[in-house]
Structure formats: structure tokens, C-alpha cells
């Protein structure tokens, strides 16, 4: 059976046989880089289309339906429009930081891609502290947002950036704590080991109530971390016009936009990996027949399916809920999510030590 693992292995073998090891490694780096950028482009197109269709159906309308069959190429047309637009740099802004910021946001999003397993044994870098790496790197993006807000020399941008800073720093805590619950059950920080440990069933089913609570808190926290509604205070359009990217136009704006969607994909991929078993098919205990049927579905499909399910949930939030206020946002974190997740961690430790899970 052809799988990503098979293709990747063959390319690796062929490169190492043909070129010197150094050259082979360099070529592999280039291939990975190109694939990452390609993935970003495709993700941007697909997710924006998905968002527009989801919102349209929830709002009793049709959504884009003119460009291409069923409006499929609407995002392509939009990208083309953004590409040919003028990229303005406002007078009085810090030009260097202003132009750097979108790239910082983009690169931060790109870095988190490294330890994610897209299919069975198909991973850029199986780092042994994968989860730690993810939670450390994913918050670098806020630097880019702060940079953008500060350098724009616009009061709305500055307010949006400061809100975003406060928000991401505080929600990082409960996201980290809920990841920790999985780590306690698994006993390993590496992403591949965490997926392996869900061989007999996904953590969300096996882990009892603590895992369920951790999952819900994780979803809420990552929604906030990616600046999505109902936590989109950084760009609250009815208050701050567009928040930190008010002054951006053309392709620089598109990069921010793209980074937002890539970030959603990444956090949902991590959520799917930790709680829903990543590429691991749905296995139930020792029902051998059922498990082998599930194995027939390719692992990459399992991963994509779970990730897009979580993305849909986050989009569902956005098109249903009003936005929180800044103090309510921080209240929610410090008065509700953080105490609950700390208590939850304690409970999870107890269950893990006693071995009360399936």
C-alpha cells in the first residue's frame, strides 16, 4: 500500500544513494521547506473557503458561488487581488518593524509545524520534547502582533496589540496545563510516543472526566490564543476597526490573514494529536476485527478528518457567540479556566497514579 511513509523513505534512500550525505540532507531541507510553504498556501485557500461557507450556511445565505464551480476559486481570486494591491507603509511608522512583523508572525506559525505527525511515521522532526517545543514556540507569534501594533503608529493598532499580548500570555497557562494532563497519562513528551500510546483508544475516551475537562479547556484556550471570536479582541472590528492590522494592506495584510488560519490549523492539529489520537485510527480496546477495519482507512485521512472537525468547531464558536470584553476575558482565564485546570491536573495525576483509566 502506498503511504506517505513509503514515499518519504524511498526519496530519502534515493537521495542518500545518489548524493553525498551532506548534499542529500540539504536537498531534503529544501524539499521540506517547499512542502511547508505549499501546505500554507493550500491551507489558506481551503480554510478561508471553508470559513466563508460555514458562516454563510449559519447565516441563511449561500456564500461565494460565482468564481469557479460552486465558488471554489473565490479565495484564489481574492489572493490575486491582494497580490496586486499596493502595500502601504504609513508615514510616521517604524518602517523596519512594520514590514518585519507579518513575517515574524508567519515564521512563528511555520516553526510549530515541525513536530506535527501528518500520517503514520510522516513527521518533519520527531523531537523528543515535542509538546514542550510546541507550547514554547506557539507563543512567539504574539511578538509579531505586538510589533505590528507598535510600529503602525496608530492608536487602534496599539490598543489591539496590547490586548493581544495580555490575552495570549494568560491563555498560554491553561493551554499548557491541559496539555500537561495528556503528558501525565502518557508519561512522554514526544508527539510520536503520545500517538503510539493511543493505540488501544483515544485519550478523550480513555482518560475519564479529567481528560474531557482538559479537552474543553484546551479548545477554549487555543481559540483565545489564535485571536478567534469570541476572543478576537485584538482585532475587534466594532471597537478597534481592525486592531493590530488596521494599517496593513495588500500582501502584508494577507500574511496576517494567512497566519491566523495556519495557526488555527496547527492548534487543531495539536488538539487532534493529543486528545483524538492524531493519525491513529479509532481503536476500541481489543476488538480485533473492528480495529483492523479501521486500519484500512489511511492514517493521513484520520489526521485530516480530526483536525478539520476541530477547525469546524472553532468556526462554529465564531459564528455563534458575541465577543467578550477585555476584563471579562481575563476574568474567564484567571477565575475559571486556571483554577479548574489546576484542580483537573491534580485529579488527573491521582487517576494516572492509581491506574484508574482504561
Amino acid at each position, binding site marked *: 500500500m502506498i503511504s506517505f511513509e513509503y514515499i518519504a523513505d524511498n526519496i530519502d534512500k534515493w537521495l542518500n544513494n545518489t548524493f553525498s550525505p551532506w548534499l542529500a540532507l540539504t536537498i531534503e531541507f529544501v524539499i521540506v521547506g517547499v512542502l511547508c510553504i505549499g501546505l500554507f498556501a493550500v491551507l489558506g485557500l481551503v480554510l478561508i473557503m471553508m470559513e466563508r461557507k460555514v458562516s454563510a*450556511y449559519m447565516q*441563511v445565505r*449561500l456564500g461565494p458561488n460565482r468564481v469557479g464551480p460552486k465558488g471554489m476559486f473565490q479565495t484564489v481570486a481574492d489572493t490575486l487581488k491582494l497580490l496586486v494591491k499596493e502595500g502601504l507603509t504609513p508615514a510616521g511608522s517604524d518602517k523596519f518593524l512594520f514590514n518585519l512583523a507579518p513575517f515574524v508572525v508567519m515564521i512563528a506559525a511555520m516553526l510549530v509545524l515541525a513536530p506535527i505527525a501528518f500520517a503514520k511515521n510522516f513527521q518533519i522532526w520527531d523531537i523528543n520534547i515535542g509538546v514542550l517545543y510546541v507550547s514554547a514556540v506557539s507563543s512567539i507569534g504574539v511578538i509579531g502582533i505586538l510589533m505590528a501594533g507598535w510600529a503602525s503608529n496608530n492608536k487602534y493598532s496599539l490598543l489591539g496589540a496590547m490586548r493581544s499580548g495580555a490575552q495570549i500570555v494568560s491563555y498560554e497557562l491553561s493551554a499548557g496545563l491541559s496539555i500537561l494532563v495528556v503528558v501525565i497519562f502518557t508519561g512522554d513528551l514526544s508527539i510520536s510516543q503520545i500517538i503510539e500510546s493511543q493505540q488501544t483508544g483515544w485519550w478523550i475516551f480513555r482518560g475519564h472526566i479529567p481528560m474531557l475537562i482538559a479537552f474543553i479547556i484546551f479548545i477554549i484556550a487555543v481559540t483565545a490564543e489564535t485571536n478567534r471570536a469570541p476572543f478576537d479582541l485584538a482585532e475587534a472590528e466594532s471597537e478597534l476597526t481592525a486592531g493590530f492590522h488596521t494599517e496593513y494592506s495588500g500582501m502584508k495584510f494577507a500574511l496576517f490573514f494567512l497566519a491566523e488560519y495556519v495557526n488555527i490549523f496547527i492548534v487543531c492539529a495539536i488538539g487532534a494529536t493529543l486528545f483524538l489520537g492524531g493519525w491513529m485510527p479509532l481503536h476500541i480496546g481489543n476488538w480485533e476485527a473492528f480495529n483492523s477495519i479501521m486500519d484500512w482507512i489511511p492514517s493521513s485521512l484520520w489526521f485530516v478528518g480530526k483536525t478539520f472537525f476541530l477547525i469546524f468547531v472553532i468556526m*462554529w464558536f465564531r459564528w*455563534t457567540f458575541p465577543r467578550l470584553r477585555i476584563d471579562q476575558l481575563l476574568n474567564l482565564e484567571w477565575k*475559571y479556566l486556571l483554577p479548574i485546570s489546576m484542580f483537573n491536573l491534580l485529579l488527573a495525576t491521582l487517576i494516572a497514579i492509581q491506574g484508574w483509566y482504561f
Partner: protein
Amino acid sequence: MFITQYIKEVFTGVKSLLIGMRRTGYYFTHHKEIITQQYPNEIPVMAERFKGEVIMLHDQNNEHACTGCTACELACPNATIKIVTKFDITPEGKKKKAIDKFVYHLELCTLCNLCIEACPTGAIKMGQNFEHSVFNRAELTKVLNKPGSKVRDDVE
């Protein structure tokens, strides 16, 4: 007790959010509720009374009922209508005042229907056309009586 209060608060809060999500989820799965009309493909039929623009009625002999009495011009609050008159020579050799041009400035018109109310002969009425956009503003100034048209004989 504080703890029960706290748990209750969290529970009711989450429940209210789920109720809202059920509503949007319902619309997401029920595509029959979609009410979008795809405009240039489906041209909406405007109501009979819809006030789109002022038009002048002409019959098959290229005759209209406008005598040029300027009642509409006086009734208009925005000076939308300008009637240019000329003098016809009747067969008996008398001079008779008649309409030369019925100039209508669509760009000034607020479609208030006062001119139609004022018209004693029912020469003008409201048309149903609602697509008025043009590239040049001058195209919005229209002459409503067709070239060569004249007043119907039975209209006084």
C-alpha cells in the same frame, strides 16, 4: 455555598452557549432555509406600485396625455421636472401652447410620488425599473416624451 454557586454558574453559562450553538447548527444543516436571491441571475419582480422612476405613457400612435400644464413641476419638491413649452399652430391658424420637452432629472428625484398625484390627466406614472446606474451623470437627465410625439386629441 460558594463552590456549588461556582459550579452552577459554570454549568448555566455553558448551557446557554450550547443553546446558541444548537440554533446556528440547525441552520448549518438545514439549507432549505436559505433565502438568498442571486440577483443578476434571478431578476426580482417589483411590485405594481413600486416607485422606480417617472415615465410618460405613450400609446401606439406615439401620443401621450401631457398638456404641459406644469402641475407636476410645481408639485415637485426638488425641481426634478422641467417642462419646456412651444407654440403649435392649430389648423384654424391660432397659436396653441404645447409641450416641447418633458425634462426629468432622475439624479434629483426622491421618488416621492407627488408629481403623479398632481397630474390632472394621468400622463405620467411610476415605472418599475430599479437599475439606474450609469457611467455618466448626464445620462440621468432624460426627456420623457418620445421624439415626434404629440398630445392625444381627447385630452384637455
